[in-house]
């Protein structure tokens, strides 16, 4: 008779077979049997977080920077509810996460037992799928299926709820063989005529634009390579969403910056005026489109996406291509090489006027700001940080708010998987635990969380995790004492009534760093900024960097509420004429 394993052992057997070597978690009553087995599986390293939300975001950071699924292990009840934010975040931003949660023993389910909650019920709308395992014989099958669901098609989070008695029960385990044929939910059914049509549209266009998103990153490094090849072969301008940054080198001349609410003037105007929009792995999010009925009125729209439900959800498109980005791009490239070997040459003339127009928009220099010699401008801080770290292979995470937008605007990414930010859900407190996960995946790389002081306080406890495992993450706080983005909206929409957006009692971040056992650095003037940043980079331990910046700086350019792409606010002096009134106030 073959050997019997307990449910807890099977969990680790499955993780081993899935090549998992890192899990982020927090123990508790309903997962104790699993934690008890941890010692017997040396290939799997557990990172103890300080809050389950931190485990979730760390798993996200790990997944986004490495391309492998992130794994989190939490207990029942509060353990499970605490990770809901991270699961929802991963769901919105398509990050593959496998969450294993403990549950009260099966005979107690439904009795309001201690630390019981309806975990599968609560997480149903924020996971791709979830399972409550009621029979130990199903456990291995469910775990392997969970990995498959999380990582195939449009990636996303899954959850496996395992009652405590199941963790003790024994059954056999068969080694997992990865099936070559994937499940029917994988959508890669694009047809050659669609590619032909795309090439034809590209050939006929005189004002084309590539609009690329996180789907390129999710499709793997090969997709980014193919994108670069295609963009350079066509000579078309390219803009990217927040999530897509890094898929195409930001310092390339064909890259016209990020688009959307805080995107560049040239990117948004090009989106508005183009005659062909090729959406590669983006989803027409409302932060991108602005006013929907005036969104790019004159263009033919192509949408390449692996998720069929993304097609025509917000914006009606002319040519949908459902498939994996790298497969579609590679077919398109092949087609161009085959049928239009001289594409670049013949095309150059045709789109030269378009490039002239773009150059005109570019000359406005919409990311410009008024620098100061007395206070550190937040944009300047990000620019200096970029200049001083650009030669290293740096990984950047962010929290959510003004600092996030400044980071996106002024930090230039040249490689995929180097930029981890919460875009869809907009989770304040994402960046610090995500940085922990990134550093775990890349122990020898420089990992910086560009943070705001309000956001970072939401998950500050994870500094303790970083210290425990000697993860030298750098928390670069643009400290303006305000919830800056909230303050900005209040200034624009609510007559400067800064209701509750000022934090009157902030901790001393340098002392806080010392209390956690890491290093605190503070910069208050532009002159000392470079030296302090260099000091931070030379510190081989976790650092909290308190960068005191201008308290009232606003993030520009900006598409104000309810406006189309071609009506951007360029700076503080621009807003008087374009005051937002009426219905525009009902936005965020």
């Amino acid at each position, binding site marked *: 008779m073959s050997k019997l394993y307990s449910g807890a052992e099977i969990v680790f057997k499955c993780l081993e077979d899935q090549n998992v070597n890192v899990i982020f978690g927090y123990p508790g009553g309903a997962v104790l049997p699993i934690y008890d087995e941890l010692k017997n599986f040396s290939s799997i390293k557990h990172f103890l977080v300080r809050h389950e939300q931190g485990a979730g975001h760390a798993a996200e950071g790990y997944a986004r920077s490495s391309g492998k699924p992130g794994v989190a292990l939490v207990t029942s009840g509060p353990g499970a509810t605490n990770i809901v934010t991270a699961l929802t975040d991963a769901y919105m931003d398509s990050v593959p996460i496998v969450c294993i949660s403990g549950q009260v023993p099966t005979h107690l389910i439904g009795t309001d037992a201690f630390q019981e909650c309806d975990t599968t019920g609560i997480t149903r709308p924020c996971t791709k799928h979830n399972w*409550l395992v*009621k029979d130990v014989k199903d456990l291995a099958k469910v775990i392997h299926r969970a990995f498959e669901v999380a990582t195939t098609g449009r990636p996303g989070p899954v959850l496996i709820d395992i009652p405590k008695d199941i963790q003790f029960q024994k059954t056999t385990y068969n080694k997992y063989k990865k099936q070559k044929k994937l499940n029917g939910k994988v959508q890669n059914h694009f047809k050659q005529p669609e590619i032909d049509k795309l090439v034809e549209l590209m050939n006929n266009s005189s004002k084309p634009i590539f609009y690329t998103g996180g789907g390129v990153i999710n499709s793997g490094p090969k997709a980014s390579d193919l994108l670069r090849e295609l963009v350079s072969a066509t000579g078309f301008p390219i803009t990217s969403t927040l999530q897509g940054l890094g898929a195409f080198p930001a310092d390339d001349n064909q890259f016209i910056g990020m688009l959307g609410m805080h995107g560049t003037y040239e990117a948004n105007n090009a989106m508005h005026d183009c005659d062909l929009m090729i959406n590669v792995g983006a989803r027409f999010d409302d932060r991108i489109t602005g006013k*929907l*009925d005036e969104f790019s009125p004159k263009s033919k729209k192509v949408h390449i996406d692996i998720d069929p*439900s993304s097609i025509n959800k917000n914006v009606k498109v002319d040519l949908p291509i459902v498939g994996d980005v790298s497969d579609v791009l590679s077919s398109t490239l092949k087609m161009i090489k085959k049928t239009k070997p001289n594409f670049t040459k013949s095309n150059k003339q045709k789109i030269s006027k378009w490039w002239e127009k773009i150059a005109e928009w570019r000359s406005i220099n919409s990311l410009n700001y008024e620098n100061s010699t007395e206070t550190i401008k937040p944009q300047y801080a990000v620019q200096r940080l970029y200049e001083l770290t650009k030669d290293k292979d740096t990984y950047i995470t962010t929290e959510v708010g003004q600092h996030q937008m400044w980071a996106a605007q002024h930090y230039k990414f040249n490689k995929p998987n180097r930029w981890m930010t919460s875009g869809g859900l907009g989770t304040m407190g994402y960046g610090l635990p995500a940085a922990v996960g990134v550093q775990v995946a890349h122990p020898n790389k420089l990992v910086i969380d560009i943070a705001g002081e309000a956001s970072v306080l939401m998950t500050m406890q994870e500094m303790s995790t970083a210290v425990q495992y000697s993860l030298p993450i750098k928390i670069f706080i643009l400290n303006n004492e305000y919830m800056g983005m909230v303050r900005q909206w209040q200034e624009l929409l609510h007559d400067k009534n800064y209701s509750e957006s000022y934090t009157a009692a902030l901790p001393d971040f340098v002392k806080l760093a010392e209390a956690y056992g890491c290093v605190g650095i503070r910069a208050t003037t532009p002159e000392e900024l470079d030296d302090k940043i260099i000091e931070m980079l030379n510190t081989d331990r976790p650092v909290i960097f308190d960068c005191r910046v201008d308290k009232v700086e606003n993030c520009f350019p900006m598409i104000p*509420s*309810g406006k189309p792409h071609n009506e951007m606010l360029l700076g503080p002096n621009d807003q008087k004429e374009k*005051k937002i009134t*009426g219905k525009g106030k009902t936005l965020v």
Partner: protein
Amino acid sequence: MSKSKSAYSIPGKIGKMDTHIIVVWVDNEAGVLARVVGLFSGRGYNIESLAVAEVDQKRNLSRITIVTTGTPQVIEQIKLQLKKLVPVHKVADFKREDKNVIFKEMALLKIVGNSSKANKALKACKKFNAVILDKTKKSLVIQVTALRRDIDKLSKNLKSYGLVSASRTGAVAMTRGSDTFK
């Protein structure tokens, strides 16, 4: 005042609302109905009626029939979102006006009153495949199968003949002819 609108997509022109019958074949497992129904409530879609039962014990398949209304775009989204659910095998979508599809709902109606009222009630039900399931001197339980609007009308009529209780199912659907939905 400038005509400024929210940065969130504002309700533009709302297209024509159609009634559709969506049929979903799912694995008959715990929570599957909650997934389907939760998708509707979570994304703000309507459910006018719902019928669900296992249809294939061997393959463990259930068939869920949902009557919903929405613009063509919403109906398309409903189908695509349903197809993304892991336990969903296939999704069919019929327009209510579709002549190639049979739609039926069932109702159990309890009439309380003397025999003259009961007879009048029965007569009113005649068109709708009325079957008497229970009969006493003072009461009647009638089963009818018909379309939703017919049953609506019927129950209104029966009020005056002593209808005291009505129990109704959601619609179920089947295509005409030898073809089945693949």
